[in-house]
């Protein structure tokens, strides 16, 4: 019987080379552990209400001035701190960009056009959930609009996609494949890429890990920063040991500048990345490098 009785998007496989159930996609990236830092650059419209509550949304009565402006630190000093850090450490990252944020990202053109980094389309804005579109055609128009806007602003096409809050409609994967998207970062079920089959064509699923993100661990679960960073470093060490016995592992770390680039968190975050960048057998990657590998 089919491992997945209610869909045929992809086959089951285990992350165990001694008992593979399907061939895994070769992931020939340097080093044992590839850390994929995904910086989520979001726009939070003051008036927008998502279809249902998602983590990080403005949650006070209109106008939620304090949260709305706090989120904007991600498009100002927060992102500047991160850009300086990435430059200092020369680490490539993925920039997951919501298209409505572009108008406020003009000071960051150098960051967005830096070919060390990959740009991933992050939808229109944080409340523009894929499940809220009236039908497949409306969703397709919205996706096309986001991709077009990013292309116009950046001067190059973007073919990787991360849905706002990872929310899907029944048509999302099909719509993405039909829209020219090649890579999707919405699934949390693996640590290596695999192929998804839709009625409109194939997509490459790159591992995402929402439940390792600062949004989940710090904002939702209210973990202490030092514990969160400690746990992540333990995780990287674990993967290094595991990868040495098996094959490359990817640790995807989504971060949100309005959280992690807050001054009281940023110092410790920077220290952690400096430690990681000096670890033998650990490399930083982005979506483009994973795909190329």
């Amino acid at each position, binding site marked *: 019987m089919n491992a997945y*009785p*209610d869909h045929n998007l992809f086959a089951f496989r285990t992350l165990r080379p001694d*008992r593979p159930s399907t061939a895994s996609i070769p992931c020939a990236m340097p080093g044992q552990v590839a850390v994929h830092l995904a910086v989520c650059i979001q726009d939070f419209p003051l008036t927008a209400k998502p279809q*249902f509550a998602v983590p990080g949304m403005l949650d006070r009565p209109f106008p939620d001035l304090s949260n709305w402006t706090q989120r904007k630190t991600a498009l100002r000093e927060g992102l500047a701190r991160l850009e300086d850090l990435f430059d200092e450490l020369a680490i490539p990252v993925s920039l997951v960009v919501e298209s409505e944020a572009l108008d406020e990202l003009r000071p960051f053109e150098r960051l967005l056009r830096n070919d060390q980094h990959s740009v991933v389309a992050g939808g229109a804005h944080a409340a523009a959930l894929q499940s809220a579109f009236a039908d497949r055609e409306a969703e397709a128009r919205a996706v096309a609009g986001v991709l077009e806007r990013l292309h116009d602003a950046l001067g190059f096409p973007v073919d990787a996609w991360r849905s706002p809050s990872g*929310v*899907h409609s029944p048509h999302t994967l099909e719509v993405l494949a039909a829209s020219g998207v090649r890579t999707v970062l919405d699934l949390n079920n693996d640590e290596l890429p695999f192929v998804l089959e839709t009625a409109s064509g194939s997509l490459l699923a790159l591992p995402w890990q929402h439940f390792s993100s600062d949004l989940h661990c710090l904002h939702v679960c209210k973990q202490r920063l030092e514990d969160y960073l400690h746990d992540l470093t333990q*995780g990287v060490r*674990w*993967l290094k040991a*595991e990868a040495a016995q098996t094959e490359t592992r990817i640790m995807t770390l989504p971060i949100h500048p309005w959280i992690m680039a807050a001054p009281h968190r940023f110092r410790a975050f920077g220290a952690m990345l400096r430690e990681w960048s000096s670890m033998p057998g650990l490399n930083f990657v982005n979506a483009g490098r994973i795909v190329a590998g």
Partner: protein
Amino acid sequence: MDWQKLLAPWSEDEARPLRWPEAKTLAFWLAPNIEYYEMAPHANSVRAPWPRPFPDMQNWSWRDYGNRVGVWRCLELFDKHGLKGSVSLNAAMCTHLPEVVQAFVDRGWELFCHGQYNTRYLFGLTPDEERAHIASACREIETFSAKRVRGFLSPALTYNESTLESAAACGIDYVFDVCAADTVVPLKLQNSTLLAIPYSMELNDFFAVVAGGLSARAYVDRFKAQFDQLLEESVLQPKVIGLPLHPYLIGMPQYVWALDQMLAHVRKHDEVWCTRAQEIADHVWQHAVPPDRAGR
């Protein structure tokens, strides 16, 4: 169900004569939840299976991680520490992902019934439907393992008034749904008795980390504090500590090291009986439940 009579009042005298085998004082057992989640499950009148509209790709794919990645990390640690316990098994795993179940069978783990799918709840079932659900799940597991299923934990902790009676009617003799004690407690049903074996909800990784917001480091601290307290108390009265786990969570790199530390902590203590739930039940049935309370 007469809820007032379900649990006998707590009494030191009744429990005192019990000792675990080889004069051990604290029984420890592992309870990994090996679960199957449907992306498009049947609707339930009481509870929605997913918090987001269909398809809830974020939450569904995370559960899938457990069977693709997390469980294999857990198995390596269980092997490393020489431990085997009791699998809280959704029977559908035997059909859809048998290689996962086989890995536990090959290692001599007990399999107990955790319903059919973790997305099919007992809420709202009639007693006949409920018995059919439990019986079917037990049968599927027994066919796979060639061993009788004796233990039960309701899928997604969902209940009706009839659930415990239904479990007993299906041949179950111990359950993990009752959280009243850190010792084994007899449950008096209408015509039978079940044993309630501590599942230790406070140590359930999902409740501690996801619902409770603990970091991995804090989870280790909680486990050690609970373990050390019960170890101290167990000198006077034998205790049980279970460790309920979900591979989609504890198998993630930033949490799996915590499991390694917790298991190492257990293994440092010779006075701990590392066992399976069925051995705990067997010992209690044989040595501690008065014949007039057994009703078996």
